[in-house]
């Protein structure tokens, strides 16, 4: 028992937490099962689809191929952590809604977390760069078209610019 479980301390969506976790568990499992953060989705569990993407110390990772025990001392952010304390959507979440970038919604959490990482660099990327930065995620519903619009529009808005499509 003792060898199989380990106490993992970390910060989840801004709150310091600790849980005993199975050393074989993925970060996806820990976030879903121990912290009930069900926005972290399982689409392949081998790092192919990006649905489980979360931010670890600000960097986007596929949490399905990141061991829970590696989260020791790290700061983890999931989609649930983006809502304001009043329950309002952040700019990028609202852009996903407004641009019809959501259909079944299953790839959405992972996509938004990668978008947050991209937007937090405060850089204005070219279309080609933006496509490449987002290409670690698979979506079968949208053809990526409106996801691209949502991210690009938010990127420009944060720079105080507007862009027409």
């Amino acid at each position, binding site marked *: 028992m003792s060898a199989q479980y380990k106490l993992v301390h970390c910060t989840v969506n801004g709150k310091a937490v600790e849980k005993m976790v199975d050393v074989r568990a993925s970060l996806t499992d820990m976030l879903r099962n121990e912290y009930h953060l069900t926005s972290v989705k399982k689409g392949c*569990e081998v790092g192919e689809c990006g649905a489980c993407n979360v931010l670890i110390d600000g960097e986007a990772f596929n949490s399905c191929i990141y061991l829970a025990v590696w989260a020791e001392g790290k700061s983890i952010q999931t989609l649930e952590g983006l809502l304001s304390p009043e329950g309002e959507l952040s700019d990028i979440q609202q852009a996903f809604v407004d641009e019809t970038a959501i259909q079944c*919604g299953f790839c959405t959490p992972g996509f938004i977390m990668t978008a947050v990482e991209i937007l937090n660099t405060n850089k204005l990327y070219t279309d080609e760069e933006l496509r490449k930065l987002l290409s670690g995620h698979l979506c079968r519903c949208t053809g990526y078209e409106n996801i691209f619009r949502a991210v690009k529009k938010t990127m420009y808005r944060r720079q105080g610019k507007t862009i027409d499509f």
Partner: protein
Amino acid sequence: MSKVGKSEVRVDGFDKASGRTKYYEDRMPAGALYVRIKHADIAHGMVKSVDTSAAEAIDGVVKVLTCFDVPDIPFPTAGHPWSMDPGHQDVADRHLLNRHVRYWGDDVAVVIAENDVAANQGVRALKVEYEELPFVLDVQKAMEDGAPQLHERFPNNILKHTDMRKGDYQKAIEEPGLIKVEGWYDTPTVQHCHIENHGCYAYEENGRIVVVTSTQIPHIIRRAVGQALGRPWADIEIIKPYIGGGFGNKQDVLYEPLCAWCSTQVGGRCVRIDCSREETFVSNRVRHAIRFHIVTWLKKDGTIQARKVECFSNQGAYASHGHSIVAKAMGSFPQHYPCENMECDAWTVFTNRPAAGAMRGYGMPQASFADECNIEDCAKALGMESYEFRKKNIMPQGFHDAFSGNTNYYDTYRECMAKGAEYIDYARKKKEYANDTGDIRRGIGMATFWYNTAVYPISLETSSNRMLLNLDGTVTFQCGETEIGQGADTAYAQMVAEALGLASYRDVRVKSCQDTDITPTGLGAYASRQTYVAGFSIRQTADLLKEKILKYANELTRQSVACMDIVDGNIVRKEDGVVLMSLSELAMTAQYNPVHSEHITAESTYTIRNNAYSFGCTFAEVEVDIPMCKVTLKNIVNVHDCGKLINPALAAAQVHGGMSMAIGFGLSEQLIFDEKTGKPLNGNLLDYKLSTFMDHPHLEAEFIENAEPTSPFGTKALGEPPACSGAPAIRNAILDATGVAIDHNPINPHVLFAEFSKAGLIHDDWREEEK
């Protein structure tokens, strides 16, 4: 102000953007047991024995069940409505687990365990002994005498053969001076690749079985689980929460019956089956690979004199949706380019491959590929511009199909083509690109399709719904036509608000989750039917609810029902527009009136006995790097006539998704099998080439809004149509660029290397030098 025809944001947008939306796995009861399936690792054979002892000895394993334990009740899996006519019922060829394994990945046994690790260890510890049998993967080889037989009652593996004859083909082709254009066209096995894998959980409650499942068709699943377990159908309750896409895979009975049965084998405890991505690729459903043989006879003036079409549909190991898919594909030919003399045949044939079922387009992406390859080649043979050849021969305005009752009310095809050509600047580019020489050449191509809306008259078409007036004047809405990501709930909210006279679509609370004990019976999400069929029953139920509301208003206001209406959420007097009371006041009064209290609700069923043609086309522009065997899609546009748009933004989003699927079908996607073993080789998202962000240009969605006369909202099919014409448009663009006609998709670099070599466009100089 109309509530339809506006690009409102999705009713489920906020929850999906904030991560609150619950899919089946997010609702999993604590302590659910894990069921893991032992899949066959041979393509064909008989299970002689399963040694379960090592698995049973694993700590945490609760039970092991094998193909020798399951009830001997064959059941069908196609997500079709039940037919009271036994001759029209789906083929029942499935068991919960199989002694006769018919493909690599077939289900042989299950291990039920307290945790996932023990369940997986248990599966690995099972020792299955097989008597191996020869297998067959190719559709036409499977039809040969002496080929390995999959199902006893289907000689030569032919599940079904149907034909269609018009005029006199043999006589027609004897006319002198005809030009013959013949080709064989092959389409691949592809998979739906919804990002949420299928999964479900089941438990017993009050002597009945509850299954919560990621499905498109809860009411159909209820029937199939009842059939498979030999239980009264009403003993089964199916709950469908939000699902992470379906695209037809979840229009089939997947693991719900097995899950329900496993629960009954462990005392009704909750058990879960969660498909892995690899299981989704191989052990769910795939798209039918269909091979077509087309012979077209042309007159010199460009008239089509006669056509022969043969379709060979690779069914895989089990019947699933079976012949209905290739039947639909075959049926498209006589209507797409009508001609006087036609001979069409379609065969559906079992092979030792994963079972093929419904997938977005239901045979039409395959038919459109073959048809539009051949039509393009016909134009080339005539020396005619293919746009003009299509314009001359495509289904004309006024065309009527007696079987479906469909009429082409407008000159839609030509309108769509004109719009697409204008967007992409077709005529100018076609001329300009003809001058390209050298290694990198540009090309432009097009393709068209038509599609039915819903399934009348082939199967039952019915839609039921319920509307409940809430205390705040909003309306709760329930129906059996499911939200699967396409945005149906939002379209329903808009239509309900419109039909009832509410202030906003936000005043409609759509209960997205279907529960077969509660939700009015509906058939689910398939056949691009939801918006069309729900439109009939929404209008009908809204009229009933409105009548009840106005009757109650009559008691309170003393105004005649005939003089009142509901406008923007208020009861108004029609003549002078005076607001008499709000719906909220009326609902509160009705609920708490000590003299006459009433819960105001209405529900109804509408049996739809209409169908509707949906049309469209794709124009694609490519750049081909010949030595690199690389195609870059530079520009693509789809134009659709799906009638009046209920929500233009959501409609465009549907088109983008379908175009993406069509691009994958044309250029990259294919499930491949080891010829020596029958083993699928790339059943995962790394090796199976699903399009990514890098593989698409901007996707342009355009519409021609010709109102559909049979629909109360003027609408018709859009869900599947966008997936139909993209692949052949790309193929025709590659032909335009290089002069090489490639008759099988996906047109990936491997294919291009072979085809360009054959055409003499590239030379293997390196190998030449070695010699």
